């Protein structure tokens, strides 16, 4: 394992141990778990009743099913199209739903004042932020899982229907598809954390706009680093370099290309990205709690 990553994991373990062993912090940490869970549950229950989310998921399922209509292509091409298109749909809609769910979580509570009834109870502000985040994670996990199951089902169905040619075979690459979907979920989790951080200080509209910008920049990291390398003005160069370094590299979680082209996947790199993503998200949520702690509601 890379020494930098090992150092960060060690630091994280030390911080957690410190929190749990300090007498005044341990009870707070213990109290936090059920509070966070309760708020997460109500967040999930609320989202389940929102028709919009259900409608989008149904739309994606229909899109995935409609991708099977490329029968004039060779089996190899069909499998590639289905995998790349299916994973693209899961990525796009997963991120869109993540943005619209996460951006409205806290600002919506503040605007509708439903937060008063909660914060007037013995609920700490960081428990509220964390509970909202965990709730969002659960909702998004369900959404991504649903879409992935449908895609896997479609691939398996197509595999059984398509007759392989001698020089071209339908390859569903199910293991790769599931891995790519899981990695995509972690990218969404990182992005959601960042959106919640922004939402603790900004309005809903600003949060949504910022989220889209972060997604766009996070998906085009290489282009930005290239532009930074070729920039003529030092100001532009500095700005682009800062943007490249600060915005989370969501591309690290992107395995769609490998899976679509049946290229061997470097699983190790993926899991490294997950570990640093967890660290990144933890830090972001701590910052969000700090900001929300001082926020006058």
């Amino acid at each position, binding site marked *: 394992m*890379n020494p*930098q*990553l090992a150092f*960060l994991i060690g*630091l994280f373990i030390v911080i957690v141990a410190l929190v749990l062993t300090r007498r005044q912090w341990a009870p707070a940490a213990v109290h936090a778990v059920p509070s966070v869970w309760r708020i997460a549950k109500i967040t999930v229950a609320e989202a389940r009743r929102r028709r919009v989310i259900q409608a989008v998921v149904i739309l994606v399922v229909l899109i995935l099913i409609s991708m099977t209509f490329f029968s004039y*292509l060779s089996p*190899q*091409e069909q499998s*590639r*199209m289905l995998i*790349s*298109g299916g994973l*693209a749909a899961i*990525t*796009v809609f997963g991120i869109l739903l993540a943005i619209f769910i996460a951006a409205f979580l806290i600002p919506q509570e503040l605007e509708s004042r439903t937060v008063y009834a909660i914060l007037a109870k013995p609920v700490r502000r960081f428990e509220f932020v964390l509970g909202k985040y965990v709730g969002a994670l659960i909702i998004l996990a369900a959404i991504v899982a649903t879409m992935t199951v449908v895609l896997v089902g479609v691939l398996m169905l197509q595999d059984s229907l398509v007759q392989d040619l001698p020089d071209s075979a339908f390859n569903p690459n199910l293991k790769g598809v599931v891995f790519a979907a899981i990695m995509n979920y972690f990218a969404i989790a990182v992005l959601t954390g960042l959106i919640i951080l922004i939402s603790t200080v900004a309005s809903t509209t600003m949060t949504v706009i910022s989220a889209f910008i972060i997604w*766009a920049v996070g*998906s*085009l*990291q*290489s*282009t930005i*680093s*290239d*532009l930074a*390398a*070729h920039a003529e003005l030092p100001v532009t160069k500095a700005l682009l370099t800062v943007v490249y*370094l*600060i915005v*989370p*590299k969501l*591309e*690290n979680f*992107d*395995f*769609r*290309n*490998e899976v*679509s*082209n049946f*290229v*061997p996947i*470097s699983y190790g*790199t993926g899991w*490294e*990205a997950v570990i*640093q993503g967890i*660290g*990144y998200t933890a*830090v*972001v949520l*701590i*910052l969000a709690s*700090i900001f929300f*702690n*001082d926020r006058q509601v």
Partner: protein
Amino acid sequence: MSSGRSRKLILGFLMVGILLMLVPVQDRIHRARPQVFDPDRKIKRVSAISVGPTPAVIAALGGFRTVAADLLWLKAERVWDGGSWWAMLPILDAVTELDPQFVLAWQVYGWHAAYNLHAESETIVDKRYWLDRGVTILEKAVEANPDNWEMIFELGWTLYDRAHEPWRASEYFYRADQFPGAKSYVSRLYYRCFEGVLDFERLFPALEYAKGRHTDPNVSDDVQHQVIANRDYDWWVQHKDDPQEHRRQIVLENTKRAERSVPFYLYPDDPYWQVCPICGLPSPKGSDVCSVCGAPVKQLSERAGRPSPASIPPDRTEL
């Protein structure tokens, strides 16, 4: 400043510090992923997608280059069906720029240039150009997919079958054969490169090598490979010094060329072959006599650093 506030500030700075420490970690992971980190190609990619339909452009800009490549590939299919072979080129170029791991696209692109457009060309210069271009495309493909044996094989095959550069081809066949998934015919083509030019110095080691590959008696493909490789080995051991056989081999080689519609007037520029003014058939460069008819041949320019083919046995005088 209250202790609470200062605590918050310290915590905040600590968090920002950790975030900054995570930056090089993220960067390192990013650079370890050639699939996503490819700064040199990105700018070219943006211009390449201008040939595509709007959804492809949007997809490419949004970071969905695989989907954009798929959409352009479908467009290429439509153009192919429409018969506009020349129009396919920029589309295939865009597809391979967007998704360099799309092996099928590279295969079609390289083949399209080296075979179809070569055949469609009317002048030697044009034919040579398309052949060279096809080889260049496939070289780029191998550079982008160094671990894909099919891609390496494709380049080797084009060099062997179309460009008639058996020694270069043999290098690629050998390289492709090192991958675990390589089919048995790759190792056989490796030695066939040397058969055609009667390079016995390399042929026998290649035959030994091919015999040592694919030895699993439970796999029917391996069994067949062993049969063919051993048969060829025994044949060449028996006929190594047989001039009749040599001539037959060269005629066979030339016939194959004829069957593939490779015009012999290609050969004035060919680095390995020279055309005999008497019989009009090609024979390997480096020898003073035609390997087919035995007539003396004027030496044409020789490619530096390339091995000369085995000389023809001196007692062959008749056709």
